[in-house]
């Protein structure tokens, strides 16, 4: 292949890699953005919920393999999906009820500190339960990849693409067409008015947490399958990056979270590939800081001034 072709293939490869991780970021970012939209809280513990999703998916594989010996892939996938989504949704609901609900009227800073406490607690609970070592995730799907013109695409990447797209389309439908979804949007716009219309903010907030956690769980499951190993400190960094993505795309905006996630994944991948891998996280954090300072409303968000 000529030099230009090599360069083009390299670029294409980096873009595909970035897109893959970006989709996972997007799934996590959705949870951040939805919760922030409804109660203006940065849920620091959300990254740990994602990590828990990965662990629950792994647990499902262990359990099914122990019971059934060699279950078919489709059964494993369903089991992983079910256990991680249900487990995380319940965890999210529990966290909201126990740690955030009592602080509903408090200053933002108080709730933020609490969420940091929850994240530490969760991270350590998982470490104590599952051990501090990395855990390997058994192959659920056969590892296949195709090489096209110097660019390789794996089956796993396609699966991530398919599942994420399905999740996002599903979410969009849910938020726009269903009653619960519309209630969520109403609350995000104006909680007081919504409650005057007979929408219970408690129920909406509960549903938002469950939904966001469920999406993060799917992200965790895909993450575990893609990298083949899970560790209790996966949540911290992925959580921060997903938050960056949510703000980048416009906090409170669902399409914003999706776009932000994908763009961040690609940007990070290009920076790591073309500049230096050592400074990868600095680029991500640098982007975070720049967005927060210069354009906190993000790409798709709106500027909400304070009422005097």
């Amino acid at each position, binding site marked *: 292949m000529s030099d230009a072709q090599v360069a083009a293939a390299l670029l294409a490869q980096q873009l595909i890699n970035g897109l893959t991780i970006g989709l996972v970021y997007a799934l996590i970012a959705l949870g951040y953005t939805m919760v922030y939209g409804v109660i*203006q*809280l*940065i849920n620091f513990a959300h990254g740990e919920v994602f990590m828990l999703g990965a662990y629950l998916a792994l647990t499902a594989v262990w359990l099914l393999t122990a019971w059934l010996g060699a279950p078919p892939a489709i059964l494993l996938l369903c089991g992983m999906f079910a256990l991680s989504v249900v487990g995380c949704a319940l965890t999210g609901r529990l966290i909201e009820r126990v*740690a955030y609900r*009592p*602080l509903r009227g*408090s200053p*933002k*800073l*108080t*709730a*933020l*500190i*609490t969420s*940091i*406490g*929850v*994240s*530490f*607690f*969760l*991270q*350590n*609970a998982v470490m*104590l339960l599952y051990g501090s070592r990395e855990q390997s995730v058994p192959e659920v799907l056969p590892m296949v990849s195709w090489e096209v013109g110097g660019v390789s695409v794996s089956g796993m990447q396609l699966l991530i693409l398919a599942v994420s797209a399905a999740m996002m389309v599903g979410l969009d439908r849910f938020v726009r067409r269903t009653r619960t979804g519309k209630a969520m949007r109403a609350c995000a716009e104006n909680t007081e008015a919504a409650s005057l219309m007979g929408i219970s903010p408690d129920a909406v907030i509960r549903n938002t947490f469950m939904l966001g956690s469920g999406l993060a769980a799917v992200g965790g499951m895909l993450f575990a399958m893609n990298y083949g190993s899970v560790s209790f400190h996966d949540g*911290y960094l992925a959580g*921060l990056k997903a*938050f960056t993505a949510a*703000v980048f795309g416009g906090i409170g905006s669902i399409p914003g979270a999706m776009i932000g996630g994908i763009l961040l994944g690609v940007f990070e991948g290009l920076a790591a590939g073309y500049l230096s891998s*050592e*400074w990868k*996280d*600095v680029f991500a*954090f*640098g982007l*975070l*800081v720049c967005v*927060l*300072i210069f354009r*906190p409303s993000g790409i798709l968000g709106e500027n909400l001034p*304070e009422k*005097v």
Partner: protein
Amino acid sequence: MNGSALKAWWRKHPFISQVVTYLAPFALLPLVHRNPYHLDVLTGVGIYAILALGLNVIVGTAGLLHLGYAAFFAIGAYSYALLNIHADCPFWLGLPASGVAAMALGTLIAVPSIRVRGDYLAITTLGFGEIVRITVNNLDEWTGGPNGLLGIDRPSLPMHGPDGWTLRSFSVDPLPYYYLVLAMTAAIAYLLFRLSDSKIGRALTAIREDELAAGCMGVPVLRTKITAFALGSFIAGLAGAVYASKQTIISPDSFDFVLSVLILAMVVLGGMGNIWGAALGAFVLGVLPEVLREFAAYRMLLFGLIMILMMIFRPQGILGGQLIRRELRPVRREVSDGAAEVKGASKSYGGVAPLKNMDLVIHAGEIVSLIGPNGAGKTSFFNCVTGLARIDAGRIAFDGGRVRLDGLAPERILRAGVARTFQNLRIFRNMTVLENVAIGYHSRTRSGLLDAILRTRRHRVEEMKTLRESLELLGWIGLNEQANEIAGCLSYGDQKRLEIARALACGPRLLLLDEPVAGMNPTEKSAISAVIRRIRDRGISVFLIEHDMKVVMPLSDRVVVMDDGRKIAEGPPDKVQCDPRVIAAYLGEPGDA
């Protein structure tokens, strides 16, 4: 000094007495208990305490959530280490240098970040903290990378021995460090106490209470916040130098996010804004892991749990977030007055147009009322005049056309001579009545941070003047009995009065009052009307928004009527009352309910 004089002095200097009382046990401890390990742990606690005190300035006093504090600690440590290794800089010189280096970085980070909203600021500082840590880890040639730096010198002191004066360096024995850290903690605590009871401390509290109102009362909000940030960073730098000299080896993994959260937890645990709270938090969270060594595996679990429980059950911390207050007695003095003149101008807005081509003139010594239906744009008009909103076209001028107000920040407009109150009452609820009024004098005095901490002559003179004149103002408006009460405890009517007093303390020549009698009973209303007249009699023009015609009509020299962003009528009260357009839009027939 005899016994009673000593007692009197002790009572007169509450800061010194507290510092001595609470830290004396630590100073005396090594005389009875020499276990070096325990002293070592307490020295570590002392370094934490210094860090907590510094972070307390940023988080507690100024109310800026900071999740990247460990980065400044790191800068301090690395600064001293590099100066020592490459330039043989001795510790006592390196100590202030580290503080300055950390302060420089802190200011650099604060300047762009400080505009960012509360919870976002937290994440911004987190991002900066991580950037600093990773950068230090990656720049091998300069910082030693993950290996870090070693061979850092310990502090040395001149000692008198058999060979005369020699320079003896600290060793692994923790005792000298123990006293060094204790002395630093005492000194920093004392200086921070002085800060809290000063003009700058008051300004910081006001910013924390209600940033917008503080800005409208003349406090340079951004600059003050940056000052607090810089001071907190300076203290972290000092702690870093001490840490580096004690460890003699430093590496990036000592300065991670978990440390930032730990220091924050210390501040929160003890009580945000409370200086002793920060020290107590450092003690508890520094000693606990040592005491609970068997449970080390559950350390982070317990830590997270403590944070959650604290925030739910006692968010104000163990000691609560109050500072020492000075009590004051009233003193008589005269307040000077001045003249004002405003020439109105045309203005308009795009999109939704709360103001469509408004013209207005206010003459010196006039009381002008602005009335109109809800949504007419009255408060928007106020906001434009006071700098909370910008007009798209037209001009607002003041002082005979000499000063242009449109485009200026609220603080500048205030200094030009325009003050205001708010429709939804924005007093500083947790400060005393006297402190609320004293804020008004912030822009009229010149002392700054250094003056406050070092108690220079300028600061003392200005503070006396400020507090005296504030009391005088309170007396004038009828609130001097409540001077030392917490503002939030006053009756609604008194709070409205307080807000007016605070605005007057700014020394305006034009006073804007946004619904000054809303929600009051008739007695209170007539009392406020009387106050407004007296204000006018002192030469201050008054421009007010009101809905109660029984107050507006007798009080005003002129009435301006707005509807849908436009002025629809203007003139003396009786003429306006009969204007058919006004009746149609707003008033209804005289005799209508």
